[in-house]
């Protein structure tokens, strides 16, 4: 870890992320009770996982830090295999296994 994040700033992240996450989970059940939510808001929430996680992962797949930011065949094919198995089987564990085997297999072959 570099100097950009001191021990203190990591604890700040942990504590504020913890409080914020708790409040998100508590929101409707605890604070808002039975009130109905605006429909547009519920619609946006429905798409948070499929929008947030891909946005996080896409640059890591295209420009992995481990290769100095260069696109790399083993990682790219592992990503494609993972998504393909995940879409076809809907099985998270199979997708992870397929991706991992592809990654290590390709890294071994490409040496």
């Amino acid at each position, binding site marked *: *870890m*570099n100097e*950009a*994040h001191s*021990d203190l700033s*990591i*604890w*700040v*992240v942990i*504590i504020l*992320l913890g409080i*914020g*996450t*708790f409040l*998100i*989970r*508590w*929101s*409707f*059940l*605890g604070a808002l*009770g039975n009130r109905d*939510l605006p429909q*547009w808001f*519920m*619609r*946006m*929430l*429905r*798409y*948070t*996982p*499929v*929008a*947030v*996680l*891909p*946005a*996080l*992962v*896409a*640059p*890591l*797949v*295209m420009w992995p*830090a*481990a290769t100095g930011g260069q696109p790399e065949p083993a990682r790219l094919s*592992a*990503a494609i295999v*993972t*998504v393909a*198995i*995940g879409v076809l*089987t809907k*099985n*998270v564990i199979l*997708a*992870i296994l397929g*991706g991992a085997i592809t990654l*290590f297999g390709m890294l071994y072959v490409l040496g």
Partner: protein
Amino acid sequence: MAPSPASQPEPRQAAAEAASARALARNPAQAFRFGMIQSLPFLIVIVPFAMLFGVVALEAGIDIAQILGFSVLVLAGASQFTAVQLLSDHAPTWVVILSGLAVNLRMAMYSASLVPWLKGATGRQKAWIAYTLIDQSYALAIQHYEHHPRLTLQQRLAYFFGAAVAMCIPWIAASWLGATLGRAIPDDIALDFAMPITFLAMIAPMLRTPAHMAACFVSIVAALLLAGLPSGLGMMIAALFGMATGALLEVWTERRQEAGS
């Protein structure tokens, strides 16, 4: 001889009624144990994922107390990984926090959808539910409640807490274990890619509708185009584009169906 199609629904319905009768007959302790038992299959994903978090966080230079701090205080896998990733990218603290929260926004939807089932709980019970409301405990609980709508509030709470205990405690323990064992893992295995693969494997089965696929596609394109922005910022903007796309396409599809019918 193959059963005729007409005879099939009856045994299935009888089985469902028997399951409902069993669910309704459980006292709270039994409902708690049942929740624990039904959550056991999820441990196959939770335990390795939590260990991986420990290992990855340790590699990023986060110490064991902080790793435990994440798992105890945040208790939400994807956002913990996101925060660690952005911390090691040297993103500004506020970006790390906002991105971690963005990953957890879906849980507001979980919270809202539990209201009809659990609104009678006490404030303290609701606080404990909120603390342990993870993807898996939510998925199990909501299915159980919808299958057996006549359960009492006590039975619903007991089931939820059984599932929550059986998943949250292993999450915390396994992330500690990963952080402890992490030093023994050789440096040259491509651990950097464990998180992308895990996330991709989680996203892929969610791409059920055209709206979900469009949200995912737009957010990927936007994230790649905006990758030059300070770390985390491009991701947040791209995610907003993706969410808006999904919501708009959903509205559009509904309108078209209404017009067609």
